């Protein structure tokens, strides 16, 4: 088995979020989600729709970074207005990186702190409320800690989650569908009791206790908790040659650590 980095482990784990999406649109915000969607398309989900990150559907993933002579292969139009339309129809999965995530899967990129005078102003809710009430959503979190996985609720609920207290009439919105959370420590889903966040695999060398200690709420775990699968040679080759030829993923984590932790 070849060596692989933590970034590559996360990318391959995140690609799994798109399994079964068929022809749905994968909207992937950020480096890991983008490479994950590209990898899914080039391996097990060839019909996935993806974009150039701007306004066009492309027949093959656009390599990250400077494109050199590479020309995008347009297969259709996907302006922002069309993205909204596809969101409303639900034929899409978004993978994003929230600044805060709570036990309900509610997410925030708006502000940190008090709403009127926040400690930190970020972007705004963007499309999170619409994404989460209309189509499937997954997340990549590069820093699994209690500042991101917060106790209580996130400071501004942009992305909605499995929090019955907020649902109209207490009923789950029909199309609310949170899928996967990939962090630098573990892979989680929402299949715990009442859709609680559940650890489904640990990255090599990580213990459940470490994940729990870095999470602001109680986590559930799969009864037979295994390791996050290592990237295959095929996946690493696709990353190197097609998706990320400039190795931008090497800059994702400080010192680009290996995927299999060295014994300390």
């Amino acid at each position, binding site marked *: 088995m070849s060596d692989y980095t933590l970034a590559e482990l996360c990318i391959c784990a995140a690609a799994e979020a798109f399994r079964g999406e068929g022809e749905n649109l994968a909207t992937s915000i950020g480096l890991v989600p983008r490479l994950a969607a590209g990898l899914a398309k080039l391996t097990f989900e060839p019909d996935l729709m993806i974009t150039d990150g701007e306004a066009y559907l492309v027949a093959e993933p656009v390599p990250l970074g400077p494109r050199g002579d590479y020309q995008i292969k347009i297969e259709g139009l996907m*302006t922002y*207005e069309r993205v*909204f339309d596809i969101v409303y129809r639900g034929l899409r999965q978004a993978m994003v990186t929230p600044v805060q995530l709570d036990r309900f899967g509610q997410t925030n990129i708006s502000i940190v702190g008090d*709403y009127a005078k*926040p*400690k930190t102003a970020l972007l705004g*809710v*963007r499309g999170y409320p*619409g994404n989460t009430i209309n189509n499937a959503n997954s997340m990549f979190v590069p820093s699994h800690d209690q500042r991101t996985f917060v106790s209580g609720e996130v400071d501004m609920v942009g992305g*909605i989650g499995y929090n019955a207290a907020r649902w109209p009439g207490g009923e789950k919105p029909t199309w609310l569908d949170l899928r996967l959370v990939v962090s630098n420590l573990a892979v989680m889903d929402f299949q715990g009791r009442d859709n609680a966040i559940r650890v489904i695999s640990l990255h090599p060398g990580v213990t459940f206790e470490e994940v729990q200690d870095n999470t602001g709420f109680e986590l559930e775990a799969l009864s037979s908790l295994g390791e996050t699968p290592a990237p295959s040679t095929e996946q690493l080759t696709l990353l190197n040659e097609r998706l990320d030829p400039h190795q931008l993923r090497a800059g994702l984590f400080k010192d680009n650590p290996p995927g299999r932790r060295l014994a300390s």
Partner: protein
Amino acid sequence: MEPLDKSMTIEEIVTQVQSGMTLGIGGWGGRRKPMAFIRALLNSEVTDLTLVSYGGPEVGMLATSGKLKKLIFGFVSMDTIPLEGHYRQARQEGRIDLMELDEGMLQLGLKAAAARLPFLPTRVGLASDVMTVNPEIKTIKSPYDDGEELVAMPALPLDMAVCHVNAADSRGNSRISGPDPFFDEWFCRASTKAYLTTEQFVATDSFNDPKIALQMPVERSLVHGVALATCGAHPTSCGPEYGMDLAHMRAYNATAKTGWQDYLADYIQGKTLSAYIEQVGGESAIKKLPLPVF
């Protein structure tokens, strides 16, 4: 009879803006923003504006200049530079009133205004804090058998909208030749008076091509005035003609921490567009700015 001539100067568009107005600005984040108009507006006495925008640097500039009373928005960002420093500062100090919306809700509000409706129904916003921070947004029960509770996204009528286009004629026909027209159409339709700034004035004949007609989302009856603003989106991008001036936007962003008096003096105060263009390196340098890749 002569056809209508709606050509005017950027400064003449600014004279249409009155304090207290609700102003819609086209473009998206760091892309195709009518920045020449924004700079001219900063040189005016106008204040107390309510701004509706898919926000970019214009939000920070108007906020930091104290011209903004209220912001109706889904985000403020400069795309490649994700966080807009001047907006953040104003937001953190609680200096502006807010109506923070999902991006799609913002469009629905414009669409409702465009159709002269009080609201449009949507699920978007339900179960999120958009509904708690904006108690004025109500829900409505579907009158049909499903009885579903929906958000009644209120219309966002605009007193004025200003958008930047690639080409226009003096009658108000216009073309957006970049890859995404964004929501400029809806800003124009939602406004009492829409104005365009344009990279170039062209003859009406130049639109006589079915492929070009597909790039013309705004019909001229919506448009009250058109002003020439070559490189008028700088430092934001205006594809396919020029990309973002990232160095300029970074320098602008840094002034959120260091104070922006120098920036104001160098690039805005008393500067005509041509003086500004010279100051930032000239038209040919701007036209060489690489288009962004995402």
